[in-house]
């Protein structure tokens, strides 16, 4: 089982962070999409799990609230506004011996895609800008992404953030495993 750590920084490659706004901005998206440039495995949908979330705010501390959530999304074949980092997947593996992940992954989207009115929200937290947060779960209690394509829907996860007053960036790291 390949373990992956994806941070929305450009350290592993990818797009620069977006400023927070009053509408949700996707920081990290992950799931099954034929747009994924696979570097490992046979391609196709994979079952994966989100098991660790770390959040912090790099701007000057202030008393503002930022809403954060993880939303189920449907990632189609060509998610616009989302630049995949799947071709750089080997940069994000916890074990350097792992070749890479097969799922689709992107950071700091400039457009929100795959979000439907009927989506579920597995995780939600309002967090003060002065605070940092971590959630980690036991094996078997992860947020699971089923190995299905966008035709079945809800085949991905999006970590998003918004605030009515905070305009800085959000630092997020998500850990996934893929089987």
């Amino acid at each position, binding site marked *: 089982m390949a373990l992956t750590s994806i941070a929305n920084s450009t350290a592993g490659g990818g797009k620069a962070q977006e400023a927070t706004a009053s509408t949700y901005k996707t920081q990290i998206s992950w799931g099954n999409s034929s747009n994924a440039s696979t570097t490992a495995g046979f391609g196709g*949908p994979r*079952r994966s799990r989100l098991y660790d979330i770390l959040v912090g705010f790099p701007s000057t*501390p202030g*008393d503002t*609230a930022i809403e954060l959530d993880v939303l*189920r999304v449907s990632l189609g074949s060509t998610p616009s506004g989302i630049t995949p980092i799947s071709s750089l997947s080997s940069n994000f593996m916890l074990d350097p011996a792992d070749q890479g992940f097969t799922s689709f992954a992107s950071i700091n989207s400039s457009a929100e895609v795959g979000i439907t009115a*009927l*989506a*579920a*929200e*597995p*995780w*939600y*937290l*309002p*967090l*003060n800008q*002065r*605070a*940092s*947060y*971590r*959630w*980690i*779960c*036991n094996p*078997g*209690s*992860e*947020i*699971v*992404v*089923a*190995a*299905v*394509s966008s*035709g*079945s*829907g*809800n085949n991905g996860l999006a970590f998003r953030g918004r605030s009515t007053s905070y305009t800085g960036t959000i630092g997020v790291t998500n850990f996934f495993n893929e089987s």
Partner: protein
Amino acid sequence: MRNPHGYAQIVSDGKWLAKGIDRFRCEEIPSGTWESDTVTCGHWRESLEYTGPCCRVIHVKPRMDPADMGGLCKQCMKWICPQCVGKGCTPLEKGIEAWEERERRLKEYGA
């Protein structure tokens, strides 16, 4: 709580009010470290609003009323979130396997 599913931690330099943790409760977060056990919903949700894996994470407040966390499904003996209470029992793993099998069958038929 006994056998939590996960663990959450907030480190803050001052106290503040978290309005709407898990979208249903408010809590004052103290200065320093705030810790919370979490439970993850173990049901597959099938309703008019949403069909798919649930896996909703609930932060458990000490001495919290179990009914506020959702509940314990007496059929599969898994913790479930408030949204899955009273909507039948389809365990998460069973639902995901059926969903993936459906897609495999559709591909075989060329759909």
